[in-house]
């Protein structure tokens, strides 16, 4: 019977593979192949094997700076979204008593994501811009004289935009993990004299680790793979690895761009694999 169930399993998973293979495996292989080729400087690709592109990626000082920028943004975004996401989820799970209200509030948090990503980005302009609402208000009530320049088109703006967009990716899995914590454990801890903060530190945090890990995977992959948020929100002042990739493609420098992309993707995959080691995702999702 196991042969039959194995065949059934494969039959049912074939449609998924029919998409994943040509639209994930193949493109990666294509980019990988391109990274080993030469560019003829005019947008064509000469099919030879060379490691020059990779050498270029690893030696150029630009690469180092790009990665630094990307990592900087990633870390800040991850830290803020994790912190905010954790407390939002905590509030929803442990402080809101009525389950219906909790779900309602949860939905309220997801509603903004029903608008286009890009629209949400440009929506920062009337808010944070020099003539924007924040600045006008602050000047109006006399806190400052000059509009705050750093609010928009800066690293600050980039991180604000990322956190705004990605905190929900943290809230959802952490909410899921926290909702699964047996409330009686908390009761037992409180009975034993633990303060509420102790309970969070010693009980809730460790038990939501898998949710945090899952959320982190989303946040990391989106930030490290981003190319347009950073460009728009920094006003061109900052760049990201994938952003540079995009620029290179635009000037048809396919092979060097490909090499850079492969390096980033590999780094990202390794990072994700590392996180997956700390938590059994399959058990996490399937209770």
């Amino acid at each position, binding site marked *: 019977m196991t042969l039959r169930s194995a065949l059934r*399993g494969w039959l049912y998973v074939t449609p998924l593979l029919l998409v994943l293979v040509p639209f994930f495996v193949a493109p990666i292989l294509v980019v990988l192949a391109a990274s080993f080729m030469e560019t003829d400087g005019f947008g064509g690709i000469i099919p030879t094997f060379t490691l020059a592109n990779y050498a270029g990626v690893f030696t150029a000082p630009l690469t180092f700076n790009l990665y630094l920028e990307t990592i900087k943004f990633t870390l800040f975004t991850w830290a803020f979204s994790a912190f*905010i996401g954790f407390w939002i989820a905590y509030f929803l799970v442990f402080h809101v008593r009525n389950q219906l209200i909790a779900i309602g509030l949860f939905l309220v948090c997801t509603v903004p994501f029903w608008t286009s990503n*890009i*629209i949400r980005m440009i929506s920062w302009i009337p808010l944070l811009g020099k003539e924007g609402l924040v600045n006008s208000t602050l000047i109006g009530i006399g806190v400052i004289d000059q509009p705050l320049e750093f609010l928009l088109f800066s690293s600050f703006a980039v991180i604000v935009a990322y956190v705004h967009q990605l905190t929900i990716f943290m809230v959802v899995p952490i909410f899921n993990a926290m909702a699964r914590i047996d409330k009686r454990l908390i009761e037992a801890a409180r009975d034993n004299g633990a303060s509420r903060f102790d309970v969070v530190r010693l009980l809730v945090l460790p038990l939501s680790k898998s949710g945090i890990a899952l959320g982190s995977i989303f946040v990391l992959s989106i930030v*490290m793979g981003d190319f347009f948020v950073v460009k728009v929100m920094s006003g061109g002042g900052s760049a990201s690895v994938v952003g540079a990739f995009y620029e290179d*493609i635009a000037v048809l420098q396919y092979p060097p761009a490909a090499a850079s992309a492969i390096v980033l993707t590999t780094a990202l995959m390794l990072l994700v694999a590392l996180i997956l080691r700390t938590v059994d995702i399959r058990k996490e999702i399937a209770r």
Partner: protein
Amino acid sequence: MTAQPLAVPLRRGGGIARPARRPWTFYVLATAFALYVLGLYGPMVCIYILSFQDIRGGLVFPMKGLSLHWFVDLFTQARTGDVKGSFDRSIRLAVVVTVITVVVSFMAGLAFRRRFPGDTAVFYLMIGSLVAPGLVLGIGVGLGFTFLGLEASWYTSALGAQLSWTLPFGVLVMFAVMSRFNTAWDEAARDLGATPWQTIRLVMIPILAPGLVAVALFGFTLSYDEFARSLQTAGPLNTLPLEIWSMTLNVTSPSLYALGTVTTVLSFLIIGASLGAIVLLQRRRARRRPAG
């Protein structure tokens, strides 16, 4: 030690039991939550308001008056871009993506209920597809198509690229949904004589219906909003996010805000309808009252 009568005076209130008071942390967290929601909605609300900007107004506050000018502008002016066309395409693409996502995720969910050789590999392949930078995959697909001499278009290459993004999400949600499905149900169905297809049709799908709607919702939203992977794979005709993108680079009037308002309203309607469907399904289940 002899027992002493209680010398401590009774607390005010006479010791009557009262409902548990909320700790101070509740108020702190509630405020934080309110601020978070404010922050979430803030920027967009600005846009919604500004889309009603007067014809003399610019991209920022203050509002010089109220008018529907920019909405009209959006739909009539050619220079504001091919909104209608790209919107049309985006909706069609999203519907196709949704249907395929639901069916394929459901099947994959069924497959993963039992272990089969290579299941871990497929699982990690899925995670990889989720995590890989969209642009890289987009470029790869674009290059691949060029190499094969095929033309990239929104209903072929973009469809596939979007599916590589929505399917992992769909399958992950399916995992969570199916784990709540008691295997005793399908054993019972089998015991009573149902074929595997009958079990799926008569037992699994009705019970999992809300989950399937959730996957559909996910699929639709992710496709409708998808940008990075579509950028390189949509071909000559844009989807809505791509159109918006090119508009942000070219257009400098509040008609962009009007576009934002319109697309939001549309998303709300569609998603609201799906959620309504889930709620309706749940209600109908619980509605049956005892006879007599």
